[in-house]
Structures are given as C-alpha cells and as structure tokens.
C-alpha cells in the first residue's frame, strides 16, 4: 500500500480530514509530518492540507513556505513524487514557487463555504487519471482567499502547456463567469507544474470521499494518486477497513 505524508503547519486544520480520507476511506497508509521536521520519511505522496497556517498572517501561506519541511517537499517534488496542495496547501505551494501565480482575496470579499462544480481539464496527471476529460466533480470549497491570479503571459503558457487541471464551471460543465465563485483568472480551481507531479487546488477533495458528507467525487482525485502509485509499482492494495476503528 502507498504512504501519504500529511504535512502539519501550526494552524493547519484539514490535516486530520486528509489523513482520514487516505487511511480510513481509501485504505492506504498515512502519516502526519510536523512542519519543523527535515525528513519526510518513507512517503510515496505528500499532501499539504488546508487550514490557516500561521493564522494567514502577512499573506496566506507566506510564512509556512519557509518551514523546515518545505525543503524536503521541494526535493520530493523535484524527484517526481506526487505533491497535492489543498486550499492553504495550494497557497503554500504558490508562495514557495512550486506552482506559478498568486492568490488574492475572493473577488466578492466573502468567505465562501459551499459545494462547487469542477470540470476536469486534463487526465494525464497522477491526480486525475481516474477521471474522464470534461468530467464534472462536485467538491466543497471553504476559503476567503482563493482568487487565483497569474499575469497574462503566465496564463497563456499554462493553458498552452495544459497545466490547468480543474476549472470552476456550471453543474453541466459549461464555463461561465457566473459560476466562477471567487473570480479566479480563467476560473482556475486547480493547476499543476510543468512536470505534472505537483497539483494545487482550492477545493477540498478529502471532504468529498464519503456519501455522508454530500459527495464522493473527491475519491476521483485522491484515488487517482493511489492508482498512479500502484501503476508505478507501489502496492496499493488497501488494508481491510471492515472493522473500522474510530
């Protein structure tokens, strides 16, 4: 089975959700890694979870990007390992320069906490290989600063290079500014690096892995990473989850 390292910064609050989704729902191994560690240990994938690292002081993710563990995360990413930044994790990846662009306050200024629809634009990433092109996923967001920005040249390069992976759309998948909840450039909800192994996304797939929470579409994202690791030779057979431990 594959091992997911879930980095914990002071102020991260979606680390347990990510751990739960990976371990209890997908039956993989998961481990918390405190931000001050300088080793990831044996990890097949890294998750930078959501939350409010350092209270969002200065700028979201601006201080967490300098945490000791981030050197290791950068090395892991450079070596090709899958790195998934969710919400605040996405913001940390942007501040760290592991993904291009920046984040602004939501265009309508309000913190938005609701399910949104995302269209999968590319399926050749470890995060979307289980999806079909154009598939719409219903996944929740919860953020006040998810308004992605990149200058026109960067956006053109991202689009040309197929690095835009998820877009905010209408429920049927149509791209329409009315459904761009936070005003993100190009309605970009998630994008990857040029090597396609680092993904940042504002929505929370780890909160959409169980029907009881309103959607299981998040399994497409997390399950894709598990499948990608299995294809790469990491045994992904889940542990029996039958006798569930609370």
């Amino acid at each position, binding site marked *: 089975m594959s091992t997911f390292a879930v980095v914990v910064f002071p102020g991260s609050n979606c680390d347990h959700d990510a751990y739960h989704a990976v371990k209890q729902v997908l039956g993989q191994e998961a481990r918390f890694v405190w931000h001050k560690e300088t080793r990831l240990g044996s990890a097949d994938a890294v998750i930078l979870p959501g939350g409010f690292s350092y209270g969002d002081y200065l700028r979201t993710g601006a201080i967490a990007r300098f945490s000791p563990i981030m050197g290791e995360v950068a090395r892991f990413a450079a070596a090709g390992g899958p790195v998934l930044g969710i919400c605040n994790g996405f913001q940390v990846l942007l501040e760290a320069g592991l993904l291009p662009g920046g984040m602004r306050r939501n265009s*309508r200024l309000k913190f938005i906490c609701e399910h949104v629809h995302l269209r999968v634009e590319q399926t050749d990433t470890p995060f979307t290989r289980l999806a079909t092109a154009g598939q719409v996923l219903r996944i929740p967001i919860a953020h006040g600063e998810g308004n992605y920005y990149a*200058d026109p040249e960067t956006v053109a390069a991202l689009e040309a290079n197929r690095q835009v992976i998820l877009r905010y759309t209408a429920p049927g998948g149509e791209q329409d500014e009315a459904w761009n909840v936070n005003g993100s450039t190009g309605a970009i909800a998630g994008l990857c690096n040029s090597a396609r192994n680092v993904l940042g996304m504002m929505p929370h797939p780890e909160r959409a892995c169980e029907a009881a929470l309103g959607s299981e579409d998040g399994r497409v994202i997390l399950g894709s990473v598990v499948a990608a690791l299995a294809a790469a030779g990491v045994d992904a057979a889940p542990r029996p989850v039958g006798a569930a431990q609370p």
Partner: protein
Amino acid sequence: MKATVFVTLKPSILDPQGKTIAEALRTLGYDSVRDVRQGKYFELDVDAADAGQARSLAATVADKLLANPVIESYRVDVEG
C-alpha cells in the same frame, strides 16, 4: 534605524477591498474620493551602519517575505 516598507498591489491587480472602502466613503458623502487601493505598511527597526544599508536590508526583506512579487510591489523609506 527605522525603515518603513509600503507594500501595494500592482496596478493591474483587482483590489476588491479598496473598491469596497471607496464605496463606503462615497456613501458617507465623500464623492471626491474617486478610488482607493489598500496596501500594507511595515515598520522595521534595524541594525544598520547607515541609511543606505538600512534601505538595502529593508529591500531584501521585502523581496524575500514582505511582498509577493507576483501581485505586489513595494517602496522603502528610511529615516535619517
């Protein structure tokens, strides 16, 4: 020595907070305030031999942490 850093959004970046403030001012009757852009202000108390060194240090710190070069630009002022 005291160095101050003003960090502002680049002109091309939409500033919804600034717009909201401008509208609030117009509601209060200050129609002659046409636009507002909100920024950040940092006061740095630095050990530096002279103003030039203080300015250079403040700029380095602004580049490294205080401003995000993707969406912000900054200005440094040094006292004395």
